[in-house]
């Protein structure tokens, strides 16, 4: 064993090891599968080749699902551990566990969604699934990282995977544009984040967040630290799509392959929130007055701009992009509150949001035909007559995103706004409620198109078994978590409590 590491460290990072090994295995399987790859991926017109590409995609998605399943199983032994491993670089606690479950669930649903999409696009599945797994690995490291070094490496792994995935459909100009936009702006924002982190390191002399919290505690307010906080907030604000760092989101969401858009808006956002909570609640509780004010302003602006901009969108993916910006604004309320209740509300909301957002995107994937992209609002005109099931599912997802009871979205918002009021930010909650009211306009507009318009100009939605599973699972989660949220609430509260050194979150209040 190398000095500084113990054999037990490798036991504690078992889930990360499993997913890494699985990703490598997938690459090997991709090469070994006995299919003429070049001809198959090109589609080539011949039915036999397309059929083989289809088989190949299916086999590889089964392997990917197996890897994700094995990773979930490997999380089981750590259900109640609360330790720092690898010399204080990574924490294995309930907080990380909760996020890891969210990431893996989202990844599994994304893979199921992708199968048919890849068949239609004729894209090569091996590299695609490998990158999805690597993005998940990056997220897991981000959620567990309690040291700037680990967090940053995890963030980079996730971000680079997403840059490539956004441009995966090479013949599509929209996809190329999305990748370039995301890459350039992403690299720029990482630079800003890194600058802030280096200031944090320079001022405290350590990269460990928990040591940093001790170093900064009780110090007089240092303007250099305020500058570091501003830079870090700007860097993370880009990742969660907070206004004014949201410019990339609509273009990237519209251009990227739809399953990737779904994963980006759920996984990447949740991971960035995990990073945000780690850095600010664990590393910088001393400056909480400063960053709370920043996040308060950010939250209000993000909610309002996101919702107002979504009102006029005619492309569904673009509309969901603006809506996801608005949702980031709601979630930021939990950070502003900063109490354990606020943090647990954030966890709850991120999980619920994952299900409703992935469900909505699954319906959009369903609309994708060989010649129709199926993401324009008019494609959904009269959908209830053509496919009542898809229309009903979309109806529920839209209502849930808007926060109408008895869906899960209502419970999530209820808990978030409740946490904000609890912490004394009543008017912030009022603005949140007003924003939810605005958002209903554009969510219900989709419903109007599906149920009240009669001219059916859109394409027939194509149902497939994996997509059916995705819609079924997300639908069930959206309803069950709305009607019986207790189990989730308890799990989230237990997770939120483990954040920080023995109740940093509580000390903030």
């Amino acid at each position: 064993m190398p000095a500084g590491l113990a054999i037990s460290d490798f036991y504690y990072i078992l889930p990360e090891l499993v997913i890494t090994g699985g990703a490598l295995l997938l690459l090997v399987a991709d090469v070994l599968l006995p299919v003429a790859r070049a001809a198959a991926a090109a589609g080539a017109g011949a039915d036999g080749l397309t059929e083989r590409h289809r088989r190949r995609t299916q086999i590889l998605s089964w392997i990917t699902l197996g890897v994700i399943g094995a990773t979930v199983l490997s999380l089981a032994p750590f259900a109640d551990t609360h330790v720092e491993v690898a010399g204080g670089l990574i924490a294995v606690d309930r907080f990380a566990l909760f996020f890891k479950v969210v990431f893996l669930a989202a990844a599994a649903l994304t893979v199921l969604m992708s199968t048919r999409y890849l068949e239609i696009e004729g894209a090569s599945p091996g590299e695609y699934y490998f990158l999805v797994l690597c993005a998940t690995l990056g997220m897991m490291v981000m959620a567990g990282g309690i040291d700037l070094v680990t967090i940053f490496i995890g963030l980079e792994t996730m971000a680079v995977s997403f840059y490539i995935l956004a441009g995966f459909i090479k013949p599509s100009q929209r996809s190329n544009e999305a990748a370039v936009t995301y890459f350039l702006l992403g690299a720029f924002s990482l630079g800003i984040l890194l600058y802030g982190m280096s200031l944090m390191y320079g001022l405290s002399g350590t990269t460990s967040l928990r040591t940093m919290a001790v170093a900064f505690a009780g110090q007089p307010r240092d303007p250099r630290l305020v500058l570091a906080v501003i830079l870090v907030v700007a860097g993370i604000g880009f990742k969660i799509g907070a206004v004014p760092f949201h410019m990339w989101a609509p273009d990237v969401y519209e251009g990227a392959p739809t399953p990737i858009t779904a994963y980006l808006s759920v996984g990447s956002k949740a991971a960035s929130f995990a990073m945000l909570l780690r850095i600010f609640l664990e590393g910088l509780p001393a400056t909480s007055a400063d960053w709370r004010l920043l996040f308060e302003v950010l939250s209000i602006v993000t909610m309002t701009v996101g919702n107002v901009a979504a009102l006029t969108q005619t492309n569904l993916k673009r509309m969901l992009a603006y809506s996801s910006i608005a949702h980031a604004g709601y979630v930021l309320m939990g950070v502003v509150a900063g109490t354990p209740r606020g943090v647990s509300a954030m966890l709850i909301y991120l999980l619920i949001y994952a299900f409703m957002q992935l469900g909505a995107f699954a319906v959009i994937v369903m609309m994708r035909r060989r010649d129709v992209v199926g993401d324009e609002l008019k494609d959904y005109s009269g959908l209830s007559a053509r496919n009542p099931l898809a229309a009903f599912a979309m109806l529920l997802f839209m209502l849930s995103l808007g926060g109408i009871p008895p869906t899960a979205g209502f419970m999530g918002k209820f808990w978030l706004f409740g946490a904000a009021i609890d912490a004394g930010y009543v008017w912030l909650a009022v603005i949140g409620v007003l924003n939810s009211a605005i958002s209903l306009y554009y969510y219900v507009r989709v419903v109007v198109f599906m149920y009240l318009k009669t001219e059916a100009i859109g394409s027939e939605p194509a149902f497939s078994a994996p997509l059916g599973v995705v819609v079924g699972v997300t639908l069930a989660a959206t309803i069950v978590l709305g009607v019986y949220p207790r189990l989730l609430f308890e799990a989230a509260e237990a997770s939120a409590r483990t954040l920080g050194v023995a109740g940093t979150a509580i000390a903030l209040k």
Partner: protein
Amino acid sequence: MGEAIAFYTLAAFILGFAVLVIATKDTVHSVLFLVLDFLFVAALYVLLEAPFLAVIQVLVYAGGIVVLYLFVVMLVNLKRPPEAHQDPRRRTWLGFGLSAAILAELAAIALYSSAGAAPAGPAAALPVAGNTEQVGWLLYTRYLIPFEIASMLLLVAMIGAIVLAKREL
């Protein structure tokens, strides 16, 4: 005192060359200024008693990456004249104004902040001597796990380059 003078001189050169990188019209000149800039950053590392980092800076940045830049510049051959804006004057003034604001802000912060030096990090007692050995030791012991994740990151970048560049897979 001597160290401070050396630091500020180097910092001034770094900033000066950085400005030249974006100020020159010729792309090749700009890349060459970038090389100079990287070399001065390397000198800064020497000043910080990190000779290994300095060497890496010269090898990787001033050497490898700049050569790549030059390749791209020569392949793309940017002969296009810079685009004329409708009102270049106004933009310049706006730029100057914003820069001055940021500069004032930074100066205020510098003035306001106490001149106290940052607390020195816990000097870990390493079992090896020599800068290179110490960096290697830390990478393969304390930071082994992030180091290995970085290897996954490189693999992702490699596969991404192949996926994006190859016409058909």
